[in-house]
């Protein structure tokens, strides 16, 4: 099974500096992600407007010319020659993933596949000094959250049957 990866923005760490947006735009296309300032946005990933590379992408479903396709690696990519600029994908995507260039052609995050092939992280991730933007895979993310929660709860464990290990000791 290919592990699904996507960008995650940790709003606790993001200070809205915009380095990620600059780094993305520096690749020679309009920035393919946008970030709200963390103060205005308490929601987890909602601060990030970027493609989530959905398994059943709404953008691709609505595209009249089948310009948008899910690749075998799970990354949703446009075929620019097919794009007529109708923006139906932009309206359909609830996550702000679609970005149009000056020519009116659809563009979107490709997780920096080319950089990935050379072993580098996506430009936005590399640019984030706060470690707020990360490329995560869904399975690991779930496990991480669960461990973090257990850590949070573990410190407060009391044993109603008697009070936990009051004393322990050994070599």
């Amino acid at each position, binding site marked *: *099974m290919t592990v699904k990866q996507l960008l995650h923005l940790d709003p606790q760490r993001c200070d809205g500096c915009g380095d990620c947006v600059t780094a993305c735009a520096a690749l020679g296309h309009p920035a393919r992600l946008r970030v709200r300032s963390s103060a205005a946005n308490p929601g987890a990933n909602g601060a990030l407007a970027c493609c989530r590379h959905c398994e059943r992408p709404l953008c691709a479903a609505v595209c009249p010319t089948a310009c948008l396709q899910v690749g075998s690696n799970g990354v949703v990519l446009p075929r620019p020659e097919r794009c007529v600029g109708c923006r139906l994908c932009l309206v359909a995507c*609830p996550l702000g993933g679609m970005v149009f260039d000056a020519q009116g052609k659809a563009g979107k995050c490709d997780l920096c596949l080319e950089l990935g092939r050379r072993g580098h992280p996506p430009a936005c991730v590399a640019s984030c000094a706060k470690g707020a933007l990360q490329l995560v895979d*869904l399975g690991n993310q*779930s496990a991480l959250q669960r461990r973090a929660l*257990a850590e949070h709860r573990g*410190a407060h464990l009391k044993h109603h049957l008697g009070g936990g*290990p009051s004393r322990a000791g050994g070599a």
Partner: protein
Amino acid sequence: MREEIMMAAGETMLLIDQSRCVGCHACETACKMENNVPPGPRWMEVVEHESVDAAGDVALSFLPLNCRHCADAPCIAVCPTQALARDGLGLVRLERERCIGCGECLFVCPFGAPQFGEDRLMQKCHGCRERRARNLPTACAQYCPSGALRCATPRELSHLVRTSRAALGAARAD
């Protein structure tokens, strides 16, 4: 620590009693067997946590983590396709045909409940809707050997907690 969750508008709720859990993982395989869940996604996962106090003593805690069917569920709020909704029993219901696999729910769920399997769409604990509609305990509760997971009406659970406290109190007074 007792934690009350999964208030079902119908009849029963699930009590997760962390003080009884020994991390045996039986609920995990029971859940997978009951729901024929393929390897990979873990609707229920028991996580162990180790902490060390100032004296160097080690304490372990075990936390069974499934979907808590939160009353104010963040996953419902962020799901862009309304694939998640509250059903008549009060459970957070996933309509898989609406799921587009965007992963939004995972990032807002504090329990890591959303799981992604071979088809890369979300799946999770459904709260044993059918069992609870028939007033049966959830599979994890029915099959838990340590009594850490219990599914009953709030009245029954409250009685259970009170009687065990009373017994403990009586024993200590001896």
